[in-house]
């Protein structure tokens, strides 16, 4: 089995689609990291001086309002307001003109970190489907089965190659993104207490990166087509709410693939469930935690894999 996995890994890493996915994922990770670091860079002296000048000008413009407030804080700011409230609320500060947020890993995880994870997963799903689809398109699976006729082994070896290969690509991309940001945060003397949160986010992303492409591979083996598999995955992901809407069951929002993916990657997510019938819009906002989300994703992938394997064992190979 190890020999077969080695063969399939060699074929996986030599695939042009996989190579393209690797390059795009790593380059995108680098760009995301650069953008994140640049957008959170410390303020230069010139920027601080400019902000001071702007604050000073704004304070000058507000002088009349401040004077009026100090004379009668309660009238301007409401009952209980004091003179210090007038200064706090009305006198512009230098920091008001320095709006760039510092680098916070937790916030990065919820923004660019999440975007990168989703991008890498999308790319790997395409790579997984293309790996199987190209075998069917070229009909080279015929030769492979003449060399190793045990179809279950062939199916498993290919799945293992997709999983391991995808894991390596995802690990590379995430390392290119997170390692420099962690170093930069430490160098800037910023708190990295969100570290464990980020580490778990990375671990969950890697788990999904090892599993989701196998699901896409299994679909491509079932449909014997890259386009069919990729089309179904993204079609269902994008149109899930429309597809679930007509069902006579309420509260089906938790079945939407994108909600489950976000919940798994972030630990939990809030989503709007239009299928619920209740009072206001607030009651339709639901929370989905990562474990139920992970269970949904695991069950769906397992069912697709079982169908694909059973089909491959029995069906004629062209």
């Amino acid at each position, binding site marked *: 089995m190890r*020999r*077969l996995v*080695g*063969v399939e890994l*060699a*074929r996986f890493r*030599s*695939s*042009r689609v996989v190579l393209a996915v690797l390059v795009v994922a790593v380059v995108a990770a680098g760009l995301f990291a650069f953008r994140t670091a640049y957008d959170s860079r410390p303020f230069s002296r010139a920027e601080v001086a400019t902000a001071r000048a702007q604050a000073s000008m704004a304070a000058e413009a507000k002088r009349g309002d401040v004077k009026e407030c100090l004379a009668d804080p309660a009238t301007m700011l409401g009952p209980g307001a004091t003179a210090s409230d007038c200064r706090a609320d009305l006198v512009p500060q230098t920091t008001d003109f320095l709006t760039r947020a510092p680098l916070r890993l937790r916030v990065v995880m919820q923004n660019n970190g999440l975007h990168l994870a989703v991008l890498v997963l999308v790319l790997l799903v395409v790579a997984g489907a293309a790996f199987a689809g190209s075998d069917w398109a*070229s*009909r*080279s699976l*015929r*030769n*492979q*089965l*003449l*060399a*190793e*006729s*045990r179809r279950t082994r062939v199916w498993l070896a290919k799945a293992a190659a997709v999983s391991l290969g995808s894991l390596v690509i995802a690990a590379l991309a995430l390392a290119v993104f997170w390692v420099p940001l962690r170093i930069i945060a430490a160098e800037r003397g910023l708190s990295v207490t969100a570290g464990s949160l980020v580490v778990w986010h990375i671990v969950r992303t890697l788990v999904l990166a090892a599993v989701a492409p196998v699901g896409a591979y299994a679909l491509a083996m079932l449909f014997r087509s890259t386009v069919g598999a990729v089309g179904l995955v993204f079609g269902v992901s994008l149109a899930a709410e429309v597809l679930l809407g007509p069902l006579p069951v309420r509260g089906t929002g938790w079945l939407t693939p994108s909600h489950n993916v976000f919940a798994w990657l972030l630990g939990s997510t809030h989503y709007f469930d239009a299928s619920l019938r209740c009072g206001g819009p607030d009651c339709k906002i639901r929370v989905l935690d990562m474990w139920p989300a992970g269970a949904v994703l695991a069950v769906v992938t397992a069912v697709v894999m079982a169908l694909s394997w059973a089909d491959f064992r*029995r069906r*004629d*190979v062209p």
Partner: protein
Amino acid sequence: MAVAIRTVGLRKVLRAQRGRRVAVDGLDMEVPAGGVHALLGAPGAGRSEVLRLLVGLSRPTAGTIELLGVPVPSRLPEVMPRVGAMVEEPVFTGSFSGRRNLLLLARAAGVGRDRVDAVIERLGLSEAARHHFAGYSVGERQRLALAAALLKDPELLLLDEPTADLDPAGAREVVTMLRERGDAGRTVLLTTDDPALVRQVCDSVHLVDEGRTVAAGSVTDVLGEVRMEMTAVPSELESLLGSRHEGTS
């Protein structure tokens, strides 16, 4: 007499665009162990489908198959290490060199690198094997497929039209190689629509039409002793099939 291949009532119904099509229709066949044997029939007679059934690429609708005494497809993995096959047109990964394609197949089959080099040299592919398969000529593709079939140095070699796309010199080399294997006690079953090739290299022949055996026996018994020219092949096959159908009606 030891039997290398035995099929009894072998039947395969394929899904076609309009309904179903019977590709193999109750084929009874016995191929003796050792020597070179042919499955002769016109295009569409079901020859390739028989090979696909023998190597497990296709599952029979009915009937039984034994390869080297082992029932297939139920125990196919037991016997496939002793079987080499080239079925239908040669297909490999286009972006890999011929050598890389063979190395991966050899590794999957548990065959050493030295065997890869040996078959590459035997098929005259030493130069071409370094280039990407996508750039191969039709003849080179055919040779690479033959090399792949020979990787396991098999007891039983199943070849679908082995000389179809080869130039005359290449075809002669392949014929010589097949004859050598047959004479060495290995079994070769080839499919062809060319009676001249059967006369040239084979010991026995199964004449098939519409998925059924029309005649079987030694080459002389089935094809007669008249040596036909290559250009007369299609008409010879037609007349052979015609006379057999008349004989059975």
